[in-house]
């Protein structure tokens, strides 16, 4: 093996080793803090290695045979390290590290065994996500794709004794599975048509125009379905807001920065293949932009701080997918990376707020800026970045996305995304103004969190600012038309002003605004989540439950019935036959005598 492979392999192996250690050595896991230390140490070294890889600018492809097959291995495992994977490696290890450190403070009151379980899952998640990022083939990607889904399920259901958390975990698992079904069918169809799972082989074929498969559109659409489920695109976005039942650091890591972006990563990774099917790309763009707008409207009426952030994540994922659909996957990945940083910051900040206020409802918070100024400042930084205010990181990536969509000539999606810019600024500042600057409630004494929580917050905030400044000075990224930057800034400003007017000045009464005609319909619909959750619940009850009742009836009455009749018949006949055994020797002699007599008669006359 070449030496150069070692470093990426180390990044992958460390979290796995820590997972194995914690999973197998139960006494260590039950110690809680010790388990946390092992997990954090592993991910810290992995982060250092990822940084080294990124600085060196590695480009490695290494594969090993896995599934044997005729004429060469059918499936391979290996590593694919390129600039795209490098950037993702750094993001995943960085956010994992910070979240794991933050969790030390956030989950301080958890019992030690539960904490150990939490860090075991965290290590497994880090391993799975890194494996997904490094995957050189659709097959390996799919394996790790499912693994991160499993970790998401386990971590959403971390407080499994809460019925709502258990339900949310199952919901997330099922709905993403719906998309994964398309994904796996797609990659198998692709394999059947080309005979390979590997990206490089497929890309080479795509470049030589050797991929003229009639069903390529269908195949790529099915693969895109996987991304729809994982990246919470309409209409499969309903699981993500419910996933907020998990601990807040988990939401920051999995449901904001890393796992949900796997769909975007897939689109970016398979970009040369998607480029061959423009129809699917147009669909991706429209669905992405529509998701962004839809989720933003839902975020505007949500009162739960974490759910606002969740809808905001759905909305931003829509941006990334729209960029991928416009053929500007690099802009999408750019937004993915900056969003990963500031959305993790926002979630961790929200965690600190929830920790301090003891509630998720922003309308029961207020005056938090005075009580916890440090958290307030970093939350404000994240909010400004999300709203797209220069010179923070979010502004540049959002502009790149908008420029990419505009240049692809997709006017409809562009308008939806532009409107979403306004809504994003509005709903984020609504939360900030109400929670941090609103009138303080009488009860409770919120306070700043400890250093294990504040440290990651400051680090992420600094990173958000520094990244923004770097792009501001270095140029870089997409350059759209000249009117784009003023437009997006003024839209964001309008959103901020609207939120300020409605929630700070009281110039506009939110209830009155929501009651005016065109908005009132929208308000009611958004509050009901456009009936989508109800639709899924109805489908679930109508079809799956009815079907399982039918199956249950068949099992209980047909399958079990046949068996019951058989066993009862055996019992009855056994009972009847039992009476033949009288225990009296003379009865047996009767049997023998008449048997012999019968045999004799039979032998004499009938034979």
């Amino acid at each position: 093996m070449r030496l150069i492979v070692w470093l990426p392999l180390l990044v992958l192996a460390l979290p796995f080793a820590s997972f194995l250690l914690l999973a197998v050595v139960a006494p260590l896991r039950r110690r809680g803090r010790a388990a946390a230390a092992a997990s954090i140490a592993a991910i810290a070294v992995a982060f250092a290695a990822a940084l080294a890889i990124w600085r060196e600018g590695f480009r490695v492809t290494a594969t090993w045979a896995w599934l044997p097959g005729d004429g060469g291995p059918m499936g391979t495992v290996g590593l694919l390290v390129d600039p795209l994977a490098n950037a993702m490696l750094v993001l995943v290890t960085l956010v994992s590290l910070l979240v794991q450190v933050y969790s030390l403070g956030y989950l301080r009151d958890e019992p030690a065994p539960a904490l150990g379980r939490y860090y075991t899952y965290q290590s497994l998640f880090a391993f799975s996500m890194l494996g997904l990022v490094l995957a050189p083939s659709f097959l390996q990607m799919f394996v790790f794709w499912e693994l991160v889904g499993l970790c998401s399920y386990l971590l959403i259901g971390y407080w499994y004794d809460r019925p709502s958390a258990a339900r949310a975990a199952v919901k997330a698992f099922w709905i993403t599975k719906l998309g994964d079904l398309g994904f796996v069918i797609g990659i198998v169809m692709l394999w059947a048509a080309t005979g390979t799972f590997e990206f490089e082989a497929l890309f080479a074929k795509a470049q030589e125009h050797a991929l003229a498969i009639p069903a390529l559109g269908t195949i790529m659409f099915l693969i895109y379905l996987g991304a729809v489920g994982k990246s919470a695109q309409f209409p499969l976005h309903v699981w993500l807001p419910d996933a907020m039942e998990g601990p807040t650091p988990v939401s920051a890591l999995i449901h904001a920065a890393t796992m949900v972006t796997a769909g975007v990563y897939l689109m970016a990774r398979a970009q040369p293949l998607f480029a061959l099917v423009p129809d699917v790309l147009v669909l991706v763009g429209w669905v992405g932009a529509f998701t962004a707008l839809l989720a933003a409207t839902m975020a505007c009426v949500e009162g739960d701080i974490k759910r606002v952030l969740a809808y905001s994540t759905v909305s931003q994922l829509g941006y990334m997918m729209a960029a991928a659909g416009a053929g500007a996957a690099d802009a999408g990945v750019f937004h993915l990376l900056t969003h990963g940083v500031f959305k993790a910051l926002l979630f961790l900040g929200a965690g600190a707020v929830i920790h301090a206020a003891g509630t998720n409802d922003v309308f029961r918070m207020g005056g938090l800026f005075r009580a916890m100024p440090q958290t307030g400042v970093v939350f404000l930084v994240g909010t400004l970045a999300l709203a797209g205010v220069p010179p923070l990181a979010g502004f540049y990536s959002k502009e790149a996305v908008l420029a990419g969509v505009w240049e692809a000539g997709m006017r409809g999606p562009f308008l939806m995304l532009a409107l979403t810019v306004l809504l994003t600024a509005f709903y984020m500042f609504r939360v900030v103004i109400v929670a941090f600057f609103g009138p303080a409630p009488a009860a409770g004494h919120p306070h700043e969190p400890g250093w294990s929580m504040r440290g990651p917050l400051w680090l992420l905030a600094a990173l958000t600012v520094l990244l923004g400044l770097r792009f501001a000075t270095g140029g870089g990224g997409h350059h759209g038309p000249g009117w784009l930057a003023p437009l997006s800034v003024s839209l964001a400003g309008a959103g901020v002003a609207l939120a300020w007017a409605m929630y700070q000045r009281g110039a506009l009464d939110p209830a009155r605004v929501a009651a005016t005609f065109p908005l009132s319909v929208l308000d009611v619909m958004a509050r009901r989540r456009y009936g989508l959750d109800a639709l899924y619940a109805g489908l679930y009850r109508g079809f799956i439950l009815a079907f399982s009742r039918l199956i249950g009836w068949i099992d209980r009455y047909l399958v079990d019935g046949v068996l019951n009749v058989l066993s009862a018949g055996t019992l009855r006949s056994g009972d009847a036959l039992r009476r033949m055994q009288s225990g009296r020797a003379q009865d047996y002699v009767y049997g023998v005598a008449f048997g012999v007599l019968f045999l004799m008669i039979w032998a004499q006359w009938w034979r």
Partner: protein
Amino acid sequence: MGLHAWLTLAALVFAIGLFGVLTRRNAVGILLGIELMLNAVNINLVAFARFNGDLAGMVFTLFTIAITVAEVAVGLAIVIVIFRVRRTVEADRLDLLRG
């Protein structure tokens, strides 16, 4: 007298013995019935030996008589032991093996 007469006698004795085995309720009576059946066989053997001029039948008969003695000895011993344990030798009540 021909062979037929002897065989008829043996069959009669065997039938009487079988009847005794099947109908007697006393274990000693059943043993007696068995003795009768065995002796019917002996008559058969001797009759065939006599009319076929083959001495083997006679020899068999001697063996059978010896074995019968042993069997009666063992059978009676068992009956006595059963009587000691159960205080009865009625075949109808010795039904421990009932299903």
